[in-house]
């Protein structure tokens, strides 16, 4: 292969990318960048974009509206960055830009040069006028390696990625021997970001050394954990970084064919990947001769059909082969005998996206981030009872406390922290005692949870861990493929027992049974889904034993969540005469007026939806929750409704 040609081909692409970027930057007028990943669109980014476009046209303002991916700040969606050089201000990030706010900003900022400082989050660059977002904990405690370009570039423009230095790592790699690249990845100590943390370099080496001329590389984008959306966001915001990692992997292991296995429930991600692949082909980055070299590779998209278990690699392979997605016993591992019996490397989206930065910056740079045994960063989708939910990328070794309270702003509403569920349905629930646990593969496994693919659910004191376990078991037992005895039947029994406990029909013997059955399922199941399905139960039984005991023995739900074990009542000392807020929202007309013209709840009618508690004005805060229901004071409904007039 001619390295000179390779570099020339890349330089040509880079020159074109730079030219386009310069042209865009030098175009007169403001640039409005709107986050348009699924999360942004769900929060109304399409409407925001339309409002900007309409107002710009109506006012004849010179401005470009650009779409970018997601910057991870879910709490602030739709996020808009306005770069308005003529105003003299630096680029400013605006949170929660509704169509109304968009119209206002177009008028007052784009036209009137007033940035409306009360609406800003901060400036995206350091400057002397406006506080920069980089000074906020959310920004400076993060370390962006995988998501570094997310939210900054247009995911549907390959040149935007190339202008940022994209595909330079691939160009480097094609000038090296595959063994050198594998050695670099091994030296970096990169561990698979899909959950189990298997060393990526070792996997590649295994597949490279495996017998057989035909090999495959599969990008596992079958993200299915409830509440997890790291892979989706990455694919929707910067697909080329994943594709670049994928091609480097294919070159390293000697594969000519790659697949991206993405769930069909991610239509936007699927569309953006297809666009990206088309652009990469047109640019000569995919196909018969990658960047003019003699390395040929093709990438195909395979849409999964909605089975969680197909994220398990052997089931994923079965499903591509056209069979029912059921896992097989390992070994043999797919790296030796995978798709169609050929050596197959299956890497998670985030693992592949980490490859180009490692190649560009070197293994030593990567090792400086994170911990000794878990180098690099971790991407989490933080959800639940937290002030600033969203996608965060932190160095491994950051404590849970720092992630929850510093990066994500802690628990809202003056409530106390209760638990953090980490690692999705395969992970565990950790209590306050674990807040100082560093986030890395080994520490979390030791605590009984696991890194998982990056779902993190934060729960405040008004959460019931029995109910949370029931929720996760409901998920895993539904998603069990039904192949092996322990998972198929065992998880169903676990769910039944947990269900009994949440309705007050459980007993202390049930807790023993839960523990024993969970241990058996963990030891006896065939694949990772079954082996880890009891983790939420086992960890919550261990760290939240009091929740279980209260349900079994006292029929009491300490988190005041399980509907059968709790009730609402109105504190007559706090309730205001004449206020009707709760009456209006009650869907079953359970709220009546007491003889002293305050409100009471008819427990017979109440469905415990909690709407009355939501609407009760904070200055009264009269609606209380209590468990067990017998503790609610009895408020009699007046015998006859008072006559009108």
């Amino acid at each position, binding site marked *: 292969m001619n390295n000179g040609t390779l570099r020339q081909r890349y330089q040509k692409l880079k020159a074109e990318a730079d030219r386009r970027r310069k042209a865009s930057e030098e175009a007169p007028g403001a640039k409005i960048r709107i986050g348009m990943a699924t999360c942004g669109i769900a929060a109304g980014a399409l409407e925001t974009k339309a409002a900007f476009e309409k107002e710009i046209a109506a006012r004849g303002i010179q401005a470009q509206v650009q779409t970018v991916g997601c910057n991870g700040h879910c709490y602030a969606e739709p996020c808009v960055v306005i770069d308005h050089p003529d105003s003299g201000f630096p680029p400013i990030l605006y949170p929660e830009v509704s169509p109304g706010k968009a119209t206002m900003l177009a008028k007052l900022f784009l036209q009137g040069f007033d940035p409306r400082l009360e609406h800003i989050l901060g400036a995206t660059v350091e400057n002397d006028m406006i506080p920069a977002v980089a000074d906020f904990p959310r920004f400076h405690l993060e370390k962006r390696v995988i998501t570094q370009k997310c939210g900054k570039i247009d995911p549907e423009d390959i040149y935007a990625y190339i202008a940022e230095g994209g595909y330079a790592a691939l160009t480097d790699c094609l000038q090296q021997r595959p063994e050198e690249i594998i050695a670099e990845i091994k030296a970096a100590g990169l561990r698979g970001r899909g959950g189990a943390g298997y060393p990526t370099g070792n996997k590649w080496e295994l597949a490279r050394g495996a017998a057989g001329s035909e090999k495959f590389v599969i990008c596992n984008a079958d993200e299915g954990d409830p509440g997890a959306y790291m892979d989706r966001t990455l694919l929707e915001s910067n697909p080329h970084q994943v594709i670049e990692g994928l091609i480097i992997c294919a070159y390293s292991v000697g594969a000519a064919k790659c697949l991206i296995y993405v769930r069909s429930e991610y239509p936007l991600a699927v569309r953006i990947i297809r666009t990206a692949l088309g652009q990469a082909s047109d640019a000569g980055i995919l196909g018969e001769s990658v960047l003019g070299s003699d390395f040929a590779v093709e990438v195909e998209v395979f849409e999964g059909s909605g*089975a969680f278990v197909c994220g398990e690699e052997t089931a994923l392979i079965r499903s591509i082969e056209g069979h*029912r997605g*059921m896992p*097989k*016993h390992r070994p043999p591992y797919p790296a030796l005998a995978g798709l169609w019996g050929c050596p197959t490397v299956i890497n998670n989206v985030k693992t592949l996206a980490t490859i180009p930065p490692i190649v560009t910056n070197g293994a030593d740079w990567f090792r400086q981030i994170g911990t000794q045994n878990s180098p690099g960063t971790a991407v989490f989708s933080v959800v639940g009872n937290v002030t600033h939910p969203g996608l965060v990328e932190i160095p491994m070794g950051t404590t849970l406390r720092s992630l929850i309270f510093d990066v994500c702003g802690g628990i809202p509403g003056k409530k106390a922290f209760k638990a953090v569920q980490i690692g999705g349905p395969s992970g565990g629930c950790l209590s306050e005692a674990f807040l100082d646990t560093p986030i890395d593969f080994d520490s979390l496994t030791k605590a009984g949870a696991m890194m998982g693919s990056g779902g993190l659910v934060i729960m405040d004191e008004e959460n019931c861990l029995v109910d949370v376990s029931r929720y996760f078991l409901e998920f895993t*037992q*539904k*998603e*069990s*493929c*039904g*192949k*092996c*005895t*322990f998972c*198929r*039947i*065992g*998880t*169903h*029994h676990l769910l*039944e027992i947990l269900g009994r406990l949440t309705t007050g029909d459980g007993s202390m*013997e049930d807790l023993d*049974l839960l523990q024993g*059955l969970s241990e*058996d399922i963990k*030891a*006896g*199941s*065939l694949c990772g889904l079954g082996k880890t399905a009891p983790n939420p139960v086992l960890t919550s039984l261990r760290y939240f034993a009091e929740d279980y005991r209260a349900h079994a023995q006292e029929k009491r739900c300490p988190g005041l969540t399980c509907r059968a074990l709790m009730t609402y009542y109105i504190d007559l000392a706090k309730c205001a005469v004449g206020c009707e807020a709760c009456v209006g929202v009650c869907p079953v007309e359970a709220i009546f007026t007491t003889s002293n013209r305050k409100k009471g709840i008819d427990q017979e009618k109440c469905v415990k939806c909690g709407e009355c508690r939501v609407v009760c004005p904070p200055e009264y805060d009269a609606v209380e929750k209590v468990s067990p229901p017998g503790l609610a004071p009895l408020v009699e409904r007046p015998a006859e409704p008072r006559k009108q007039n």
Partner: protein
Amino acid sequence: MMISLTIDDRQIQVAGGTSLLKACLDSGIYIPHICFMEESDRSPASCRLCWVEIEGHSWPVTACTVTIDHPIAVKTDTPAVRHLQRSALQLLLSVHRVECKKCPANRQCVLQNIARFLEVGLKPGRLQRRLKEPDVDGSHPYLDHYPNRCVLCGKCIRVCRNHDNRTALTFAGRGFHTVIRSFGRFDSDTVACDSCRACVEICPVGALVIREA
């Protein structure tokens, strides 16, 4: 190449490349199992009964998935092995209609044999019994399927070759609701189920029976 194995107190010689389960069974050492079939190259390992402990492993493994390529010492009767076997059997029995007298597999049933071997009754222990509806699936032209007898070992699927040399049986549904189902066209020309009966004969629990005319 012959490899020497220590199974409990016995020494046996087996050909390299065979599975540990087959090696034991061939030497007259019984290990409970349902889904294993000698003829197929890779065991589905789905019944989770053939547990053994191998020296050097901290936890029991399924014997059907161990390929013998070097000498190992195996124990087939440890507390951990028996615990997992009894647990798996109880799980299977918790979804099984135990009406042995009405069942064609009575006295040859694999569940009866394993229960006897493990010295336990045909009871699901502390688990509650959960049966499927309906009790009989009569959608096949010649066969009746009894989902509450079925242990989902999948042997019937693997022996069925009657549908243009492809199986006409499959797993259907998901998770707890997984069942064996027939699919495809059942013209009398293409399906010779009434004369084949391979699935009926291999079923270890009498879940597939030829429908009485």
